[in-house]
């Protein structure tokens, strides 16, 4: 018999909210507000019953003594634990809604409410969006708006996470305007600036069920490493190669250091979590209209151009009293290749006419890699030169969605301070990989494209918590070309550019591991110290490698 003394009001309310959210998804036309018959006579009794079951299930879970079985010395205790775990059901999902950030643009910053049952549509109603967290109305206070100025008129923006009701495999939700099912005073428009994210369903179905069974025993939160990985899997965030939870005590956690203005010695306030995402980055062009980069989740400013001509991006590093290190990077839009050089120059050297450099506007933003912020990176040009007009950027579109998930009532915890940030991008350039063919093998018969493809796959899909080693690149090549090539070597080593969260760039070169912690691998060795990198929250486990096909040169002999 159920023990109704175990049921708490908060449990009933939570279960009611969850059921309401499910009902809204399935039957958006049904009134399930307080006072409706469906809510009061159906949903509420069901919630009470479900809360009773939950309370009993919690009780059962406490009595399972999983730890006891795990640590037991009995021979078959492990298989016993496996059998027990199999009872925690995990099912493949058939349909995954697309998720995206929607912006509401208002004429005033008045306090207003967006009802939880709001539906956004486009076109003939084929596309319908609902709030991701539709358990309660959204109350917007004046401080929640972002003020923007467009042609002398002030507008107030408010963003929220939405998901699609339609879950067709071929459904694509591109950026643009939406219509609202409810009338909101002073609303100018509702729009999304980027496409909605959707994981390839077949990819999700084929995800390791075994892994998900393991994760099903993990609390779905954004506060632990396992919890973060489980949640990103559960919410089907697309194009994620890997993720990592960084918290108190980790060397990459610097965001929680109490400012020197408050504490003289370095002291961590604790209680903060960084959700580091290793996403497949999207390439997007944006116009540059001010002296700052656009307000987008930019992680790599691939190319910056002025009136159609690409400019070199230059970073200066202090080196000695007479010299400084100059890193010069140039992207060719014609060939798709990137060239990068490092040189010691006179300390008085400045930018030339075809060069720009980037600097972060506020040091605290350094700890928010990839997070969109207005005026985050300032652009410097040579004296008398005009500002750039456009750029090609690599952006992490997952950041906004994951941050909204973190902030949603479903996952936010009391007094949480959790931030989704991008892993530090590392662009790899392979100046030359040489294959020496076996006797009798025609040089022209060796598929150069396959060499590039294998190298790209390893680098672009790398999600380990360690840096890529040369052996990780050589092994798949050797296996694929055994019998064809007798020797494979990287004759000029491998170059890689670290795009740092403060807008600076660093060129490395290696013949073994693509690490950023070993500063002796910097092209001008020890331009920075390893402590400098650590202070930027960078280590080998928070790197996101990428390479372009065009940046691999293959020589077959």
């Amino acid at each position, binding site marked *: 018999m159920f023990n109704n003394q175990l049921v708490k009001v908060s449990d009933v309310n939570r279960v009611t909210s969850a059921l309401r959210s499910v009902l809204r998804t399935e039957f958006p036309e049904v009134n399930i507000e307080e006072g*409706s*018959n469906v809510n009061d006579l159906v949903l509420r009794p069901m919630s009470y019953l479900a809360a009773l079951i939950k309370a009993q299930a919690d009780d059962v879970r406490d009595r399972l003594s999983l730890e006891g079985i795990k640590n037991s010395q009995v021979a078959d205790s492990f298989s016993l634990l496996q059998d027990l775990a199999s009872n925690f059901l995990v099912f493949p999902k058939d349909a995954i809604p697309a998720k995206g950030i929607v912006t509401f643009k208002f004429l005033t910053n008045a306090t207003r409410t967006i009802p939880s049952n709001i539906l956004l549509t486009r076109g003939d109603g084929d596309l319908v969006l609902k709030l991701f967290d539709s358990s309660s109305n959204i109350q917007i206070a004046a401080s929640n708006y972002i003020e923007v100025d467009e042609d002398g008129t002030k507008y107030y923006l408010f963003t929220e996470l939405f998901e699609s009701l339609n879950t067709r495999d071929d459904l694509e939700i591109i950026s643009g305007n939406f219509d609202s099912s409810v009338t909101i005073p002073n609303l100018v428009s509702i729009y999304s600036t980027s496409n909605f994210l959707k994981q390839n369903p077949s990819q999700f179905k084929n995800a390791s069920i075994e892994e998900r069974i393991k994760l099903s025993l993990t609390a779905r939160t954004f506060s632990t490493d396992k919890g973060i990985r489980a949640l990103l899997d559960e919410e089907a965030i697309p194009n994620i190669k890997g993720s990592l939870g960084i918290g108190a005590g980790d060397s990459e956690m610097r965001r929680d250091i109490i400012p020197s203005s408050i504490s003289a010695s370095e002291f961590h306030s604790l209680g903060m979590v960084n959700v580091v995402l290793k996403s497949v980055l999207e390439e997007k062009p944006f116009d540059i209209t001010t002296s700052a980069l656009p307000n987008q989740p930019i992680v790599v400013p691939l190319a910056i151009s002025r009136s159609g001509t690409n400019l070199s991006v230059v970073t200066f590093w202090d080196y000695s009293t007479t010299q400084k290190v100059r890193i010069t990077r140039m992207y060719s839009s014609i060939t798709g290749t990137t060239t990068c050089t490092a040189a010691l120059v006179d300390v008085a050297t400045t930018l030339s006419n075809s060069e720009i450099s980037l600097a972060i506007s506020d040091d605290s933003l350094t700890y928010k890699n990839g997070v969109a912020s207005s005026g985050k990176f300032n652009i410097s040009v040579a004296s008398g030169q005009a500002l750039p007009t456009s750029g090609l950027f690599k952006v992490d579109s997952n950041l906004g969605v994951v941050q909204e998930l973190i902030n949603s009532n479903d996952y936010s915890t009391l007094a949480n301070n959790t931030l989704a940030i991008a892993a530090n991008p590392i662009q790899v350039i392979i100046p030359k990989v040489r294959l020496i063919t076996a006797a009798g093998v025609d040089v022209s018969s060796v598929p150069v494209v396959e060499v590039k493809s294998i190298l790209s796959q390893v680098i672009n899909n790398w999600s380990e918590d360690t840096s890529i080693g040369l052996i990780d690149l050589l092994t798949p090549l050797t296996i694929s070309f055994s019998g064809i090539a007798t020797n494979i070597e990287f004759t000029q080593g491998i170059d890689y550019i670290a795009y740092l969260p403060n807008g600076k760039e660093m060129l490395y070169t290696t013949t073994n591991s693509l690490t950023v912690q070993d500063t002796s691998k910097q092209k001008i060795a020890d331009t920075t110290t390893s402590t400098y990198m650590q202070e930027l929250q960078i280590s080998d486990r928070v790197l996101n490698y990428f390479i372009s096909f065009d940046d691999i040169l293959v020589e077959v002999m």
Partner: protein
Amino acid sequence: MSRDMSTFPLPIILDSEEMGKFVYKATSLSFAQDEVGELISHTDTSFIALTNLTLKILLTSKGSVPNKPEEGTNLNKLLELGYSASTLQEDIALIMLDAENQIKRLQDNILSINPSTRLDSIKIIESSLINNSELRLVLVLENQAKQSVLIQLV
């Protein structure tokens, strides 16, 4: 505009004498199906929504909703535990006032509500003892569109 399931008084089986009087007796509320088996529903802008809500609040015993003990009225208790003829009118007036306040409070939290659904007042037309065990209550519900409906509880 959304829809809500409608509740109806569930008729009980009458004896032949009552049948002859063409009376409709019910002791509980129920959902109902139409001729094709679909649950009968109404829109949240109709007067039925207000009637349903009022009856639900009136007939819910205060304290019976575990996570909202303040919801409902003492009408059932009044009928079950007996009443004093000297304070009956006052008790019923207080119960109706309580119900009216609860409905208005609830409707204040709903953003866009149609005038035909929003309660204006509950008026007691008649409250009288038929005999020692039967009480007749005749109420008039009036919405803000100034429409009204008569409800008789015996």
